[in-house]
C-alpha cells in the first residue's frame, strides 16, 4: 500500500487507516466485508455509510463539520427517498387493484351476457365441461356440430356429431379486445347467423 497506513487483522474483522489518501482504503473496504472501522477522512466516511460491506460500527474522528453535514444530508435524502419510494409503491398498488377490479367486473358482465343467450343445455355443458355445442345446417344441407370452448382465439372446433372427434379448429375473434365470454358469444352469434361468413373469415387448422 503506497499511501497511508492500513492495518488489516488476519481475520479481517476490523480496519484502521491513518492515511490521507482514500483510494486504496475505499476500494479495499468496499471489496472486503469489514467489522468496526475508523477513519478521519470525510470522503471515506460517506462511502462507508453507503457501503453494504461494512457491518460494524463506523467511527468518524474528524472535527470538521463538512463531513457530518454531508452525512446528515445523505441520511435526510435517504429518508425522503424512502418515503417517496413508499408513496410510489402504494400508488402503483392502488392502480393495480383498480385495474384488477375493472377486469373482474368486465368478466362478470360478459359471463352474464353469454349465459343469457345460451339454451339451458348449453349452459349446463359450459358449466360442466367448459364448452358448449351448437348444430348448424350449412348451405349444402349438411348438419355440422361446433364446440365453442372457453377462450378468445383458436377455441372453436368442428366436431364429428356422432363421435365427438375434432375435425377442424377454427380461429376467429373480435378485432377489438373484449372479455373471453363476449368473444365466445360473438362466435356463437356469427356461426349461427352466417356460417359461410364465419368460415370465410376464420383461419382453419
Amino acid at each position, binding site marked *: 500500500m503506497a499511501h497511508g497506513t492500513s492495518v488489516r487483522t488476519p481475520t479481517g474483522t476490523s480496519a484502521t487507516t491513518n492515511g490521507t489518501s482514500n483510494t486504496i482504503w475505499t476500494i479495499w473496504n468496499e471489496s472486503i466485508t469489514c467489522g468496526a472501522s475508523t477513519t478521519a477522512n470525510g470522503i471515506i466516511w460517506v462511502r462507508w455509510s453507503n457501503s453494504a460491506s461494512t457491518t460494524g460500527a463506523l467511527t468518524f474522528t474528524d472535527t470538521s463539520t463538512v463531513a457530518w453535514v454531508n452525512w446528515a444530508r445523505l441520511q435526510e435524502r435517504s429518508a425522503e427517498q424512502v418515503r417517496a419510494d413508499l408513496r410510489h409503491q402504494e400508488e402503483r398498488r392502488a392502480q393495480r387493484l383498480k385495474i384488477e377490479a*375493472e377486469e373482474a367486473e368486465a368478466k362478470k358482465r*360478459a359471463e352474464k*351476457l353469454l349465459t343469457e343467450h345460451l339454451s339451458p343445455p348449453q349452459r349446463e355443458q359450459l358449466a360442466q365441461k367448459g364448452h358448449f355445442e351448437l348444430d348448424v345446417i350449412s348451405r349444402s344441407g349438411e348438419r355440422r356440430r361446433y364446440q365453442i370452448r372457453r377462450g378468445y382465439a383458436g377455441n372453436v372446433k368442428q366436431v364429428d356429431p356422432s363421435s365427438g372427434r375434432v375435425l377442424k379448429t377454427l380461429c376467429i375473434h*373480435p378485432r377489438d379486445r373484449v372479455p373471453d365470454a363476449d368473444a365466445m*358469444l360473438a362466435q356463437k352469434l356469427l356461426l349461427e347467423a352466417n356460417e359461410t361468413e364465419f368460415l370465410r373469415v*376464420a383461419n382453419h387448422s
Partner: protein
Amino acid sequence: MELNTFENLPAGKGVMAIMGREGDSKHIWDKSKPDEVDAARVLFNSLVTEKRYLAFKVVKDGAKGEQVREFDPNEERYIFVPPMVGG
C-alpha cells in the same frame, strides 16, 4: 339510460348491448318516444356503418340470433359485436 341486464327489460323499451373492452355497455330506448328512437337509430347506424360492428337481433335462452343491417325500433334486443378477424 343504463341497464345492467337484458333481464327484466321494462315493457315498451328496447336495449342494445355493445361489446367492449370493459364488458358490454347497454343503451336503452323508449319505443314511444321519437327522440329516443332517433338516438337509437343514429347509434345503430354509427356502429354498423362507420365502425363496421356486426348487429344481431336476439332473443333470450339461446335461440338463434339474426344478423341485421337496419334498425327496427320495434325490436327489443340487439347485440353489437366488433368486426371479426381470423386469428
